[in-house]
């Protein structure tokens, strides 16, 4: 049962969907504050390279090294996002331009590769996130492989989805955040600190993208390779729209996208002849469909993007 085709797809959906989930969850927080950060790819790579160097150089037991790697990746992701926050919130640079610049600056032919070169990262890292057999239940039919045989990162992502949902929709701070994203001037009039809220959530988004990066460098491909995220930062951006800026929907979307990526290869291996390009493009097609549906007014208004997304806030310009 656990070896069936469907199970294989589901297991791989969770494994390959996890980095997307972290990055998209972070971007949800950022975009909920009204800041669009297209630099996800760059932030992920920065997290990935720093996680790699921690695993390669730091001594100590694995749990300690990996814990430090997560914190370091979050820190460097947040610092990378700080560039974007400063440019767009303080300097009020066009958010699209700044985000793209961030991806180029930190991305495949930029800072992350430079650091990897300086740090001489080339072998598989010694400390990796591998699957944990929780309570020895991994052998249970169906739920075993899905719920009790994941990496620590996947469990962490589940906690973050729960915390994120609760924070956004059940706390005062989450309400304030959404207010800032919908109408910064109103929020400002209410006495909320728009600039601080946007800074904090842009940095939080960067921190989560950093963890998304180490899913690649410490778990999926645990050897540093320049540009190893290979465009998954962009899929995460599409995922935010696909998931209507909601953590739980984003999680389902991440696993759906993860499943589709594996499906095309698994079907190929089974000798079923579907052009892999078609399956690979489905995430983007679905995102466009969602965008069209939303903008055509097919879905209700409350499902759509934060109103102030992508616009700078300037107090005098109210």
């Amino acid at each position, binding site marked *: 049962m656990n*070896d069936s*085709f469907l199970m294989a797809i589901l297991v*791989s959906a969770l494994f390959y969907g996890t980095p997307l989930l972290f990055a998209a969850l972070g971007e949800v927080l950022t975009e909920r504050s009204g800041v669009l950060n297209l630099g996800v790819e760059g932030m992920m790579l920065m997290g990935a390279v720093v996680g790699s160097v921690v695993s390669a150089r730091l001594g100590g037991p694995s749990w300690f090294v990996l814990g430090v790697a997560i914190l370091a990746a979050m820190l460097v992701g947040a610092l990378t996002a700080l560039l974007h926050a400063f440019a767009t919130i303080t300097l009020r640079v066009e958010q699209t331009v700044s985000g793209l610049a961030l991806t180029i600056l930190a991305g495949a032919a930029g800072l992350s590769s*430079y650091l990897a*070169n300086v740090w001489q990262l080339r072998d598989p890292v010694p400390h990796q996130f591998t699957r944990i057999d929780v309570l020895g239940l991994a052998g249970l039919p169906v739920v075993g492989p899905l719920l009790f045989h994941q990496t620590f990162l996947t469990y962490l992502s589940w906690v973050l989805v729960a915390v994120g949902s609760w924070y956004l929709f059940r706390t005062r701070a989450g309400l304030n955040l959404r207010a800032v994203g919908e109408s910064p001037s109103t929020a400002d009039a209410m006495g909320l600190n728009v600039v601080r809220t946007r800074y904090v959530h842009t940095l939080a988004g960067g921190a989560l993208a950093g963890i998304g990066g180490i899913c690649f460098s410490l778990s999926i*491909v645990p050897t540093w390779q320049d540009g190893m995220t*290979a465009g998954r930062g962009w899929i995460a951006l599409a995922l935010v729209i696909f998931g209507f800026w909601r953590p739980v929907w984003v999680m389902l979307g991440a696993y759906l996208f993860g499943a589709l990526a594996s499906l095309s290869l698994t079907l*190929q*291996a089974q000798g079923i002849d579907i052009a892999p390009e078609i399956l690979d493009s489905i995430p983007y097609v679905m995102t466009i469909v969602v965008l069209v549906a939303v903008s055509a007014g097919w879905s209700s208004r409350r499902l759509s993007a934060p109103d102030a997304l992508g616009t700078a806030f300037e107090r005098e310009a109210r």
Partner: protein
Amino acid sequence: MDRRTLLIGGLGLAALATTGCVTNKGATSAAPATAAPGATSTAAATIKAAWIYVGPINDGGWTQSHDEGRRFAEKELGSKLITTYKENVPEGPEVAQTIETLVKDGNKIIFATSFGFGEAMLAAAKKYPDVKFLHATGVWHSEQPNFGTYYGATEEAKYLAGIAAGKETKANLIGFVAPFLIPEVIRHINAFTLGAQSVNPAAKVKIVEIKSWFDPTKERQGADSLITQGVDVIVNGGDSPAPGEAAKAKNLGWVGYDSDQSANFPDIWLTAPLYRWGPYYVNQIRTALEGTWKKEDYYGNLKDGFNYLAPFGKRVDQATRDLIEAKKKEIIDGTFQIFKGPLKDNKGAERVAAGAVVSADDLQKIDWLVEGVS
């Protein structure tokens, strides 16, 4: 919105981005050499040589192996050679600019190691007849006297690696993670499969085409999918160690490509076809120094040591090692031909009649997979 702030900020970021993405810095190593005492008067005393790389020199694969070749040449030729390299040069208009700079800096021999650099190299060769231009993996075989190409018959090493995999598989099913099904890769898959079947007639090879030259996650996903289909040996078509990680998670044998990962994957490592660029570089530079350089389109092989196999892993037993060694000898002395008929394609049609051998030209454009590949 304050437009001036926006403009200045935007420009600043754009500038940041531009400086960030261009990392093709040159590094000149080896001290400028003075004419060695007693040097012959006819040959040049020193020569400047330059390398243009598409990736970073620590990519753990392709570019790294070329850079090892460059350093090998430095060591061999000592003070007679001054080298420069440019890394991360994109396959685009930048190449022509890079070549111009290198020529102006006095480099007399330039190596470009990516397929997409070919046209710019050929154009530069016409412009600068006294500089030698050499292009790896290219198909721009031209009459231009100062332009040459170089690559090799890696299918020979792939065949030998296939023997190791054919002996390793218990399920008689081997998984091959292919980047793109272009003639080069098809040639490699076919040779590999024939190698596996030479020791295990029941062996079949399952392939997934991941449609990317560089996507380590997809390479691992491809390997995972193959494992789900029951393969018990994984073979790399690209050079990322990611498929090895998939194999390691299930404790399955792994054949790498292009980089020796034997130390990193001791439990699952079988072997890998590797390239040795150094001797070619030394030969080109030395003949240029001595004034005896002649244009050639070099195609290396096992015989001249251009292709070789990585050290075997512990899963490869002595009998198999001996078998591979014997086959290698036969390939080297020409008594064994890999693509010799009768050969059928994977649809069952006969492609090569008994006794016939696929010509070198046909191998360069091969578009059919041998029997047993699916």
